[in-house]
């Protein structure tokens, strides 16, 4: 901030430019009110660069004004910079006015994310004296739908799905009044003029009722499944305190084990059922209202079967007025499962007709409304690890807010990965990371992907000139990239993981990247996944890895952990692996001919690529410990292994980890000689021996985590010594494991290293497109500059 060398208390003119998220968040009315308070005359307007204020006042008043706007901005605003310069031409005295926006503002401002209902609206919603009492679509400049209702830019009501609801005179007056909380609130509405609710049966027919919310609450209380049209798509809601209802939902959705998210009526209910720390509480109540993974208290009353085998449950608080009204109904259960309203792998339904048709086999009732959802946005999911929030799924509340990076990028499209796909649009110093899209092999997800790319290109006015994709030739994101006939950059998966974290933290210098991941295609044609890279923004070198294990049956091995266990055992012991003396009981249950078939495949290298995957090592360990041999959702075995280990961890486990760290590392988990490898089989050996000594599986699971952390630390230290690089990046799907990440961060604290991990950017493949965009964009720039040399 530039301070102005001017005598005090003289009347002066100044132009103030405010950059950041300052548009569509009630910034101009806020400035208007502030100006009125401090007796400042002048104007405020939105421009392509940010909000520009021209102000005349006594210098001390102006100082107070700037101080207030810097330190107490509207809740949704994020100020990045405030620049001031003297006005050369004095302004007319007297009033303060809000000017029309200048053209071309879309580029930097675009569209704000969708925001949970604010406290003012919540109060009005439940106030019988308010004209919006019990109106489920109440909102204001500080809250409500944004990105999900926008059809085109600029963000103005006629270009949203609110266009079919002309405002009544009262709403219009609020909308036009700069002193009102609803000044320019595009979705502003009331019971007279706005959207409504409807109550339908599973046959699709409307059911006449006094109040759809009352009907829905009653149905939920009776154990019915209600499909509920929300903000970014449909939810399927059931009573989360009733095991039989949860079981019915699982059965109808054919989702036997995958964790179900739960919405609780309020923070007190959440505190009663879950252990919640300060950061978790902050997240639950934040304007974004994400799903937060929380540890249940023993005495909780929620149904078993919400997250079988896992020690955390995804919890969120009501974030739309509709949710608030539902929980305010007496019969409504205090906890509702709120799972995505979709069928087998497809994206969530957003249209009424589509939901009525496709969810009819699952839902008993439908709570519908007539405010169209233009863009599908799932609930965001985060987990607090080491006191910081980590977004596991970045969607509602966060998207499409651009991420600011320190490097100017050419207009670039990063096409992302395969399963937890996102895409990313980069230009100048910003990168717009899309919402979670899902598995692109699902036709509807692929359609969602291609349409979203078009939509975001339009609303951010970014026309990609180059495109970046993964090295994997069969990802549909790669196929999409190849069809664009733009300069194409193929980026190695784990390099992209690393650079996504570098982008989040603005790191330009080379780093040691430790990527503990599932699978990613390597430039050598093998499958990578547990990697130690020297990475910078445009290149990476593999310095170390987990020693490769056979992956018998390819992707089959990723859903049948016993294959990985057999592969590791066979590597270690050959045919002896199957002697009763060695074979762990869990694997003795696998029919001998199947075990033999896996061995035959390994011997003939038939459909058995080698992989350095860390995820598959977790699978092998989970199998050996008898946790599970077949998975029904991605990552299940590894998550259950973590839960088993966490159950054995005392409150002082980090100290124990440090103590274990000082003891000698058991026989060369880190391979000697110049090969920088963590020996994957050695973990398996350790576990087989521990099982034979009759050790408790929980203890073994925890010890596995400890030894893995020790090995990673050991190898990292060697690489630090070798390269002289002290900056370390941690990423990859396995880093979503709390014990692993927290343990590593704890140990690294004692190593004088600068350690960075993904926080706002997912640790999993949701970040790949961001990394691709940066690497591809900057590779292109450096290529161009070489060519012009």
């Amino acid at each position, binding site marked *: 901030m530039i301070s102005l060398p001017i005598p005090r208390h003289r009347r002066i003119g100044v132009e103030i430019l405010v950059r950041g998220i300052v548009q569509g968040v009630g910034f101009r009315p806020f400035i208007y009110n502030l100006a009125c308070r401090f007796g400042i005359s002048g104007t405020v307007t939105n421009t392509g660069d940010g909000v520009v204020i021209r102000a005349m006042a006594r210098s001390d008043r102006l100082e107070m004004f700037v101080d207030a706007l810097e330190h107490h901005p509207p809740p949704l605003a994020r100020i990045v910079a405030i620049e001031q310069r003297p006005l050369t031409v004095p302004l007319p005295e007297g009033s303060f006015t809000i000017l029309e926006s200048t053209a071309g503002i879309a580029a930097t401002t675009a569209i704000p994310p969708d925001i949970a209902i604010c406290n003012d609206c919540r109060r009005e919603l439940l106030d019988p004296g308010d004209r919006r009492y019990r109106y489920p679509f109440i909102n204001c400049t500080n809250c409500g739908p944004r990105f999900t209702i926008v059809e085109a830019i600029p963000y103005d009501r006629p270009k949203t799905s609110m266009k079919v609801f002309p405002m009544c005179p009262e709403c219009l007056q609020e909308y036009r009044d700069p002193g009102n909380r609803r000044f320019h609130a595009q979705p502003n509405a009331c019971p007279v003029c706005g959207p409504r609710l409807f109550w339908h049966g599973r046959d699709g027919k409307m059911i006449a009722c006094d109040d759809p919310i009352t009907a829905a609450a009653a149905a939920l209380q009776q154990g019915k499944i209600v499909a509920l049209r929300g903000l970014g798509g449909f939810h399927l809601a059931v009573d989360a305190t009733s095991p039989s209802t949860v079981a019915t939902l699982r059965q109808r959705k*054919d989702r036997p084990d995958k964790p179900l998210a739960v919405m609780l009526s309020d923070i007190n209910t959440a505190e009663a059922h879950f252990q919640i720390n300060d950061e978790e509480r902050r997240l639950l109540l934040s304007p974004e209202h994400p799903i937060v993974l929380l540890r249940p208290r023993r005495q909780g009353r929620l149904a078993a079967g919400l997250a079988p085998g896992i020690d955390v449950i995804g919890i969120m608080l009501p974030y739309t007025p509709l949710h608030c009204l539902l929980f305010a109904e007496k019969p409504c259960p205090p906890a509702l499962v709120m799972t995505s309203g979709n*069928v*087998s*792998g*497809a994206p969530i339904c957003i249209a009424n007709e589509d939901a009525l048709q*496709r969810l009819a*086999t699952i839902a008993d009732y439908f709570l519908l409304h007539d405010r169209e959802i233009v863009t599908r946005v799932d609930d965001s999911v985060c987990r607090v690890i080491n006191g910081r929030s980590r977004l596991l799924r970045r969607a509602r509340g966060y998207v499409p807010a651009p991420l600011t990076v320190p490097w100017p990028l050419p207009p670039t499209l990063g096409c992302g*990965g*395969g*399963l*937890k796909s996102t895409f990313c649009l980069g230009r100048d110093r910003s990168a717009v990371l899309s919402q979670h899209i899902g598995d*692109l*092999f*699902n*036709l*509807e997800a*692929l359609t969602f992907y291609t349409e979203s790319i078009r939509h975001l290109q339009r609303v951010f006015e970014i026309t990609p000139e180059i495109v970046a994709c993964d090295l*994997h*030739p*069969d*990802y*549909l994101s790669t*196929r999409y990239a190849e069809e664009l006939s733009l300069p194409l950059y193929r980026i190695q998966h784990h390099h992209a993981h690393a650079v996504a974290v570098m982008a989040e933290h603005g790191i330009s210098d080379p780093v040691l990247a430790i990527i503990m*991941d*599932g*699978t*990613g*295609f390597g430039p050598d044609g093998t*499958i990578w996944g547990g990697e130690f890279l020297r990475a910078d923004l445009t290149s990476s070198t593999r310095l170390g890895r987990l020693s490769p294990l056979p*992956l*018998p*049956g*390819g*992707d*089959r*091995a*990723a*859903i049948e952990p016993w294959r990985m266990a057999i592969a590791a055992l066979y590597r270690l012991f050959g045919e002896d692996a199957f002697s009763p003396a060695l074979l762990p009981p869990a694997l003795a249950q696998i029919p001998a*001919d*199947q075990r*033999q*078939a896996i061995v*035959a*495949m390994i*011997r*003939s290298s*038939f*459909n058995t*690529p080698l*992989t350095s995957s860390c*995820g598959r090592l977790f699978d092998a360990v989970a199998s050996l410990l008898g946790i599970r041999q077949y998975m029904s959702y*991605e990552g299940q075995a590894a998550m259950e292994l973590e839960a088993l280990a966490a159950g054995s961890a005392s409150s002082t486990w980090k100290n124990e980890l440090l103590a274990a760290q000082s003891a000698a590392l058991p026989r060369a988990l880190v391979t000697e000689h110049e090969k920088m490898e963590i020996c994957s089989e050695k973990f398996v050996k350790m576990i087989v021996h521990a099982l034979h000594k009759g050790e408790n599986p929980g203890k073994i699971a925890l010890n596995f985590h400890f030894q893995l952390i020790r090995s990673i630390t050991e190898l990292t230290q060697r690489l630090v010594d070798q390269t002289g690089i002290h900056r370390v990046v941690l990423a990859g*799907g396995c880093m979503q494991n709390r014990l692993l990440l927290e343990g590593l961060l704890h140990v690294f604290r004692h190593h004088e290293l600068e350690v960075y991990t993904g926080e706002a950017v997912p640790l*999993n*493949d949701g970040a790949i497109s961001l990394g691709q965009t940066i690497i591809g964009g900057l590779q292109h720039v450096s290529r161009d500059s070489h060519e012009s040399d």
Partner: protein
Amino acid sequence: MADKCILLDHGSGGLASQELISSLFVKHLDNPTLRGLEDSAVLERPAGRLAFTTDSYVVDPIFFPGGDIGMLAVHGTINDLAMRGAQPLCLSLGLILEEGMALDDLERIVVSIAACCRDSGVPVVTGDTKVVPRGKGDKIFINTSGIGVLADGIDISSKNAREGDVILLSGTMGDHGITIMTRRAGISMQGRLESDTRPLHRLVQRLLEGLPGGVRTLRDPTRGGVATTLNEIAANSGLGVELREEFLPVRPQVRAACELLGLEPLYLANEGKLLAVVSADQAETALRIMRETDEGAEAAIIGRMVGGKAGRVVITTPLGGMRMVTPLHGEPLPRIC
């Protein structure tokens, strides 16, 4: 025959070659045109248009349950002719043998070729044999070319598929591919796995006669399987393909082996199956005709051609999921992260 193995001399064109030709090829494949052993076969000109195709066969192992490389070579070329609606007339047979190949094996293959020719009524009318030094080949490579004749008015092509047309598969998927794959992986399965290699020209003739003008496209889903062939049909016709998972015929033992090996039946080779795209109103007739034949006894309607999804093949699962069935770049690669 005194020699037990193929020697380089057998391909020299000299006496050893001539002995091999007369003692093996002429003996088993004998027919008036071949018997002359001239530089080229001279054929009577048939009425109608000619279809002409060629294909080379390399397979490991060369003998497998349900067949051998020779059968593949005869059936493959007959089927390629049939897939344009042509009636196969005759074949050429080119062999590239590796020095050291057991003569008994070669004879077994030639006998098998001869039997296939007799059964299908399509003679080998010209041929050639070369021998390459040990290590420069893999026992035996075969090339067959074929000539067939098309009646006027027949126009079978993957370009011809129209929106709304129905797709039939003449039998179960993946039998040949999985038979070879399990051998290569070195595993044995419960339940018999055998190649489905067989000629399809008679089935095709029945279809053409039974559905005048109704057969748009015929393709044999060999390498790359039903998935790859349907992608080609979709690309060539500018339409989409919608499959129903529950309609796809797969033998239980094939499915079990696929699960074990981590393979998809949709991508496995077939050597005795055809995909037929027929007009919707004739689909039931087509199905009945197929099922009346031996080679089409397990035929099924598996999907249809749709508009609006040009070039895309999608499979609908019983739960309502719709998955993309894409052509693979090469071998299947893991992608679960």
